């Protein structure tokens, strides 16, 4: 009465697969179907089939196009800064070797802090009038007046300001992953390059970075996906303002649904957002990450 291995494996996977089907796949199906309807925000209200109308409204809406570009800019900014800072720290830890271990632990703790707390904290640091950041910069002589930069009130720079908590929270993640990768670069390779007279910059760009490529690719893809979904930190800092200057895709969809009570339009935006994420992630995974190709 022994069931075949293949079926046994299937039985083991079924509960998890069912869970994901019911609570991820089905809601996604609902999202896509809802996007073709005009839905009243009242529960049990009318639903009228409107075809592609919601999609047309999304693509012709300035808010949607703007949020798309902002999400892209935000993601690029967050990932670039995190990568640069994280790599710097990882190299620092590596060159300092074993003794830096305690310090590495200290560097980890922001990872455990809730994004909502990080957002709140940085809002408090950057807020006009009594924010500490402006004061410190002016005391250091960098700014003439503590309120010279309206971190969260100037639409031109607010997208950068709301990215700061995200960068603060997850640079250590980037550092950790890159550090793990650096541990696996064979020492004799570096030695050989040193003996050949390679200086630090060429060592970094010609040897270390190419060898780290797979690790870098994974870290960038994973962080990119996360940054593109940013919500908590921005909501608590600016709620998308001023004048929508920090309204990213997640925020716009949330507000379209909750504030403006338009589930149909929100669903269409959500569907486009999801498809774009999947497409970009697919391209990134196959071209940058290339799983299994050259590890």
């Amino acid at each position: 009465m022994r069931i075949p291995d293949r079926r046994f494996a299937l039985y083991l996977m079924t509960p998890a697969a069912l869970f994901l089907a019911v609570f991820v796949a089905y809601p996604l199906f609902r999202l896509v179907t809802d996007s073709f309807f005009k839905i009243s925000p009242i529960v049990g209200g009318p639903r009228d089939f409107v075809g592609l109308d919601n999609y047309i409204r999304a693509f012709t809406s300035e808010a949607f196009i703007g949020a798309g570009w902002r999400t892209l800019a935000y993601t690029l900014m967050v990932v670039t800064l995190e990568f640069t800072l994280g790599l710097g720290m990882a190299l620092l830890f590596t060159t300092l070797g074993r003794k830096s271990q305690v310090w590495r632990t200290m560097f980890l703790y922001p990872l455990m802090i809730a994004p909502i707390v990080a957002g709140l904290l940085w809002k408090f640091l950057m807020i006009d009038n009594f924010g500490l950041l402006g004061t410190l910069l002016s005391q250091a002589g960098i700014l003439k007046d503590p309120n010279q930069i309206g971190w969260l009130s100037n639409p031109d720079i607010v997208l950068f300001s709301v990215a700061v908590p995200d960068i603060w929270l997850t640079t250590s993640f980037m550092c950790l992953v890159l550090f793990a990768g650096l541990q696996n670069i064979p020492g004799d390779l570096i030695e050989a390059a040193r003996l050949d007279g390679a200086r630090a910059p060429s060592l970094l760009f010609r040897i270390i970075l190419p060898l780290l490529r797979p690790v870098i690719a994974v870290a960038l893809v994973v962080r990119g996906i996360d940054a593109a979904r940013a919500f908590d930190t921005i909501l608590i800092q600016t709620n998308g303002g001023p004048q929508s200057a920090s309204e990213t895709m997640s925020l716009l969809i949330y507000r379209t649904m909750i504030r403006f009570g338009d589930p149909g339009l929100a669903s269409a935006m959500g569907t486009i957002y999801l498809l774009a994420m999947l497409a970009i992630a697919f391209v990134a995974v196959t071209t940058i990450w290339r799983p299994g190709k050259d590890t």
Partner: protein
Amino acid sequence: MPSRTATAPQTTTEPASAGGGRRRGGVNREGLEAGKRSTRTILWILLAAALVLYGFPFLYLLFTSFKTPIDTIAVPPTILPKEWTLDNYINALGRNGVPASFINSIQTAVISTLLSLVLAVPAAYGITRYKTASGRVFIMAALVTRMVPPVAIGIPLASMMASVGLADTPIALSIAHTTISLPLSIWLMSSFFEAVPQDLEEAATVDGCSRLGALWRVVIPVVSGGIAVTAIFAFLASWNEFLFALLMTAVRSQTTPVVIANFQTQFGLDWGSMTALAAVYSIPVILLTLLLQRKIVAGMTLGAVKG
């Protein structure tokens, strides 16, 4: 379809498969370490400066939570409180709904961690032990799940929960959180199972154990460390999550992150209480991190690679 070991660059799986983030040192260590004493001193100073800068924001949050209301919004702001007070803590924790929100947060995180483990452990075992085509499809599907923006499924999920009478309950929110932690748990557990030699359970089956018996009595004890890592990550994901909590909870099941966010609107800008509550909410997980840092590093590195 690439095999799993190939999906993850071999380089990064190493520290985690060794169990506790211990790394193979030896040759590589001499390679990148700085040689000259003076260079090393400069690098240490640089590191110390970076860490002070990095740690400062959270210290400032702690200091602020001990300030008096006037101190909190003083212009120009001071770093240390002029006068230390516990009023903010008393205020924040005594506020209506705050103690209940802590209980909700704990409840939700515990339920979603258990749910995630119960589903992920057998699934990951099935995927790793029997390399079937369906297993490979399933693990890729779990990876795709990670790319789904929570806002896209949050709204339909909330209305689904409402239609089965689960609106505003910790159960509904736990299920939502499990949609996030389950895929990651499957990836993490798969790598831990990967490291278990197959002859272990083969020996057990020869001795008369059933396959389930071998899994339960032989394999599970071996991967218990991995299960602990996976549990920590599932717990943290739920503890810190905000968007689902915002969409799916109202009065009864609100978690603390939502309460922290609501402070802004409901009570004007009471920075003192907000920072106190934020500190209280962060301290348990910071302690957890310090206690279990090696396990967390292992999971983090693996999590990055896998999901």
